[in-house]
């Protein structure tokens, strides 16, 4: 297991290095130069712009700039945002927690609905709830996130006026801690459903088919023939085995949630990292684009690693590939 872990981590580091290169390369290919707009200002001479270019090292060749950038990253210097005139690290400290809260909440919601419904529809296959669940799963897997978000806003914010359509908290904070939490939750409900619905649908189907598989196994029959209560057979003997593949799927779903976060944060004007990335891309705020992209990519790489290791823990055959 140790050898496998080391090998996987090594491969991941290589991927991470490639990702930093890809990021830097792509961002350097973005059309437009942040200094061009300075030339519009009659007070600024071309010489001054050239001087700035030299000071910021923008006249160096690609390899030098890449290595320099990498060095700064390693030292923890993430650069300055052109648009916000703030260090990128400060922006991230504001935005990243919001995204993690959103993703965490939606995963919690998805898991807590997907598992029970998945188990139930496997145990009572072809029951009414099984059909409802199947229909819901098809809906959840096919509905476009951004459209679902807009429809939820139209219904809950415009029509019934019970939930806010944008933002992440009220302007005036409630006095108690519980009040603050409830206030955040009110703003989270719609975005959380919007992001979570497709993973919920996927996990539900996966739990169902995994459970169906396990219920057919001999050891489930053995448990039954020992005279155990059906409840115990399902929850202890079958479910624990059925959960193994579901857990790895769980980790593999996280990268997709980042895409969901970009779309959802755009729809709900939720100040998270996805929205930061999107706006930075549209306004050519290149330092922010590269760092946010890199962070998303690193988190994705980390999740893939976690899924791989998880799988190896669960299924020892994987370790000897």
């Amino acid at each position, binding site marked *: 297991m140790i050898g496998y872990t080391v090998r996987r981590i090594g491969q991941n580091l290589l991927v991470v290095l490639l990702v930093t290169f890809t990021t830097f390369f792509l961002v350097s290919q*973005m059309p437009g130069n942040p200094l061009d707009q300075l030339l519009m200002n009659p007070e600024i001479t071309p010489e001054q712009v050239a001087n700035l270019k030299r000071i910021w090292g923008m006249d160096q060749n690609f390899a030098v700039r890449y290595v320099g950038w990498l060095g700064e990253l390693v030292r923890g210097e993430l650069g300055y945002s052109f648009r916000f005139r703030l260090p990128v690290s400060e922006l991230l400290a504001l935005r990243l927690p919001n995204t993690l809260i959103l993703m965490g909440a939606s995963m919690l919601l998805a898991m807590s609905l997907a598992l029970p419904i998945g188990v139930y529809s496997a145990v009572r296959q072809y029951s009414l709830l099984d059909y409802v669940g199947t229909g819901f799963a098809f809906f959840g897997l096919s509905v*476009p996130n*951004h459209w679902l978000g*807009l429809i939820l806003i*139209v219904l809950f914010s*415009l029509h019934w006026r019970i939930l806010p359509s944008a933002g992440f908290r009220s302007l005036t904070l409630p006095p108690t801690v519980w009040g603050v939490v409830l206030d955040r939750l009110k703003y989270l409900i719609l975005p959380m459903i919007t992001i979570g619905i497709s993973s919920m649908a996927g996990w539900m189907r996966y739990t169902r088919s995994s459970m169906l598989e396990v219920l057919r196994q001999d050891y489930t029959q053995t448990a039954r023939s020992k005279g155990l209560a059906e409840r115990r057979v399902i929850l202890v003997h079958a479910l624990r085995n059925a959960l193994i593949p579901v857990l790895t799927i769980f980790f593999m779903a996280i990268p997709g949630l980042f*895409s969901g976060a970009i*779309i959802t944060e755009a729809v709900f004007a939720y100040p998270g990292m996805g929205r930061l990335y999107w706006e930075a*891309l549209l306004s050519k705020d290149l330092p922010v684009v590269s760092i946010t992209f890199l962070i998303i*990519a690193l988190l994705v790489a980390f999740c893939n690693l976690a899924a791989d290791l998880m799988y190896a823990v669960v299924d020892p055959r994987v370790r000897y590939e």
Partner: protein
Amino acid sequence: MKEPRVRAARSQSEFVIVFRRLLRHRLAILGGAVFLGFGLMAALAPWIAPEGPNDINITRRFREPSPSHPLGTDELGRDVLSRIMYGGRISIALGLVVALTGATVGGLIGAMSGYFGGVLDSLFMRLVDFMLAIPTLPIMMILSAIIGQGFWQMVFVLVIFGWIGIARIVRGVVLSLREQDFIAAARAVGASRSRIILRHVLPNVMAPIIVAATLGVASAILSESVLSYLGLGIPPNVPSWGNMLMKARDYFLRLPILVVWPGLCIFLTTLSVNFLGDGLRDAIDPRLRGR
């Protein structure tokens, strides 16, 4: 299986068998019919649409749906039904082109990887691993920002990520085929390498390619709508379902119903294509039914 005559008879009717099984799959047929309907609507738009997609008339902005404008009018007084029809041309054509190109590229790479193995295989598979490790939507967004907006630019961006799944599937099938007796038999009777690939390998990988390509149509339509919604897809002056949705969002305080139509079209087409793809998969390989 021992007599060659039996095999030939079976492989001839394979297509018919699959088609019969598909016909029994009601949801798949319904999905196919709905998708065909949308496709016809889009293809015939210039002849059946009540108005042009850019017929601006600011005296009739934000009209509620009515008999003269069944889906209402938008912020420039354009007829939304007509724009939906023309928008379908872009969205569906994009889906089909991307799926077809992705399937061709992915099929070729996967087949080569699986058949030849060795250095080529490990090179392709490292590339696949790497591309799977980077988050798709963020990198598609950067690529769009770099190469600009437009139909073929979109096709390019989507195909870059559209071949990977198919390549992996095809590689797996080809790898297992390579070891099978009938390939060895073909080699033994002196069949050329190209004959083996075209006559013996290709027909066996067509099934998974067709299924994956069908599902690829849905995901391409969805990706188009997301990128256009974020302002990084089809340019705003061309109607596509994605950028109609983006525009509708700006005005949904004035006329919320505008948000419904383009999204509903995206939803119904992707849903119907997914049903069709699922039905095809079941028809081709009945063992997978119910998964």
